[in-house]
């Protein structure tokens, strides 16, 4: 898994490339990146999964661990561009009740950039993937 990151409108966009299998090294690199960005004051993250063909249960654990770190510090992390296979996993595990999921990175950034989306628990808007679910 490769990590590419950029900042847009103050929001950290983290692209994951390759299978998100969440084994030790990948998970630690991802977690370290998120922690480092938070040390620099960032609190809003978009994780783009468009170039990740699938993720396994450890990959889910990796995303949730990062989400927990971010929300624990009053921030928010959302997902974008999930493939239909990834979306199936998110649906089966009901993680769409935990993560906001957007069709595109641009929509995710718009959501986080909106000050009214300053994210107290419960103010959690969701947009489900429009792709047909199996």
């Amino acid at each position, binding site marked *: 898994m490769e990590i590419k990151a950029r900042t847009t409108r103050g929001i950290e966009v983290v692209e994951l490339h390759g299978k998100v299998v*969440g*084994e*030790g*090294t990948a*998970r*630690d690199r991802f*977690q370290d990146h998120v922690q480092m960005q938070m040390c620099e004051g960032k609190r809003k993250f978009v994780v783009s999964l468009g170039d990740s063909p699938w993720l*396994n*249960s*450890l990959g*889910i*654990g*990796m*995303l*949730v*661990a*990062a*989400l*927990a*770190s971010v*929300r*624990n510090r009053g921030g928010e992390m959302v997902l974008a561009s999930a493939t239909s296979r990834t979306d199936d*996993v998110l649906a*089966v*595990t*009901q*993680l769409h*009740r*935990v993560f906001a999921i957007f069709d595109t990175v641009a929509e995710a950034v718009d959501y986080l950039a909106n000050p009214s989306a300053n994210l107290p*628990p419960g103010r*959690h808007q969701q947009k489900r993937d429009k792709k047909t679910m199996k």
Partner: protein
Amino acid sequence: MGIQVTSMQTGGVEIVAISGKIVGSAQSSQDFQELFRALVSKGKKMYVIDLSETPWTNSLGVGMLMGAYTTVKKQGGEVVLANATDRIRDLLRVTRLDAIFSVHDSLHSAMEHLRNNEGNSP
């Protein structure tokens, strides 16, 4: 593993007890995952993770629990938590994972919940 994990079956429910602080090291996460994969491959569907001997967990530990949860759900099973401390409950609430994790005050209540919902899993 840094934590002690024991599992036993009672009344059709697999009880996985964790003792020690769950800090979710890479190795313990993978070991924990392997345990669940092995149990799921034996056709076990209903799980309680007993946290009575777990004073707290961090974000990586939460990720570890979610990894196991995912393994079980993908096979149409169900996993709930029992005896979580207030500290762990707070972390689940802040992360909103309490929306998907059913947390119970006792093993008895957790097992009742699973039995009552048996067959309702996707």
